[in-house]
């Protein structure tokens, strides 16, 4: 096809479409969250019919990153974006502060307590008592069972009010 006669899409519009499509790509480990909710998509670059999605890992050893990269490419392919690269960057380091408010609501509805704002407990202070709200009954009368949970991004809590155990998406 002759490039000069080809209709050139508006880059801003294309980017906007891609951001929208990425809302359909979910985190394989916390499937209620999209990669947008999670805040791991840092940029979408559109240059000369090449698309690049820039993502950042939540944790250094997060085993989901390769699957997320593949799912992003597959999803964009469904919408006809064939030449897509997914680039991983480390800096600036991901923080739970980048999680969307919608994402936090979805987590809570799913039974996972959303992360507290970062400043609460992210230091070396020992035996810190972080108040975490039970996602089921909303009580703050909760106890930490373990700092580490089923995935790198979660810790285990128990609600002393409704007696249910739950995951807390820890601040990072």
């Amino acid at each position, binding site marked *: 096809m002759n490039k000069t006669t080809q209709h050139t899409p508006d880059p801003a519009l294309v980017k906007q479409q891609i951001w929208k499509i990425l809302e359909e790509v979910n985190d394989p480990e916390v499937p209620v969250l999209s990669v947008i909710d999670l805040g791991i998509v840092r940029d979408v670059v559109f240059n000369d019919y090449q698309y690049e999605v820039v993502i950042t890992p939540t944790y*250094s050893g997060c085993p989901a990153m390769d699957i997320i990269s593949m799912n992003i490419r597959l999803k964009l392919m469904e919408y006809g974006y064939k030449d897509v690269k997914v680039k991983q960057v*480390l800096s600036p380091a991901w923080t739970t502060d980048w999680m969307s408010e919608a994402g936090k609501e979805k987590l809570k509805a799913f039974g996972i307590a959303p992360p507290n704002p970062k400043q609460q407990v992210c230091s070396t202070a020992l*035996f810190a008592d972080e108040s975490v709200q039970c996602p089921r009954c909303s009580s703050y009368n909760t106890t930490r069972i373990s*700092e580490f*949970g089923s995935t*790198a991004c979660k810790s285990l809590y128990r609600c002393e009010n409704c007696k249910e155990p739950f995951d807390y998406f820890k601040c990072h």
Partner: protein
Amino acid sequence: MQSTYQLIKCTLHLADNALILSQRNSEWCGHGPVLEQDIAITNISLDLLGQAKNFYAYAAALYNGFSDDEKNATDHLIPRPWKNYGRELNEDDLAFLRDENQYLNFLMPELPRGDWAFTILRQFFFSAWQYDLYTNLIKSPDATIAAIADKSLKEVTYHLRWSSEWVIRLGDGTDESHARMQNAVDDLWMYTGEMFEPFIDEALAPDSDTKLLQQSWVNRVKNIFDEANLGMPVSGWMQTGGTSGRHTEHLGYILAEMQYIQRTFPNATW
């Protein structure tokens, strides 16, 4: 050329430390004293594995971009089997195909996992070292090293807090847990001096004065030991050698287990 050589050596050193401790800690998978702590130590393993992967990927990228002279100077650090592969070096080659004397980690991470007290104390000593070092490396003029340090420091903060709390719980716990923790202190202390021998290139970590790092580490350890009712050892003989490739007999065994598949089925993926 000297500086690129130092850079790749330091990067491998940081990667090797993280990888070997990750591999050791992962031995607890399914064997932890209680389920929650089994999950904790293997989560820490996973973080360390991720950090190692990032450093190895950088070391491989550095090597692939080297001039012939630089490649020759680095040759003794590069895995021999890879040289017949006819493709660019990658992070897996560096982890799975190097020989024992090419590893530049400290001796402490390669020691057998011991009991839970030993594992906890080693993690605490190691995380305390990583914490101050990575805090400095964030200011490194090398952007990739700074980015990996920045990313890793958040995880290390968590590891340091978790291991500090457990040193206190066990040291200040029952007679049995106290005795085991004190034994671990006695066994591990002579491997701590190696962490403060000058090795990390000054150009890489501008504010990294080894003496200051050591002072900060000792203060941190002393504070926790005071809480834990553990006696601070008097400095004595320090065993070294890891950073120049002279390892304990334990490293060979850990590599044999870890590298078996890649050496038996080269380039296997799954």
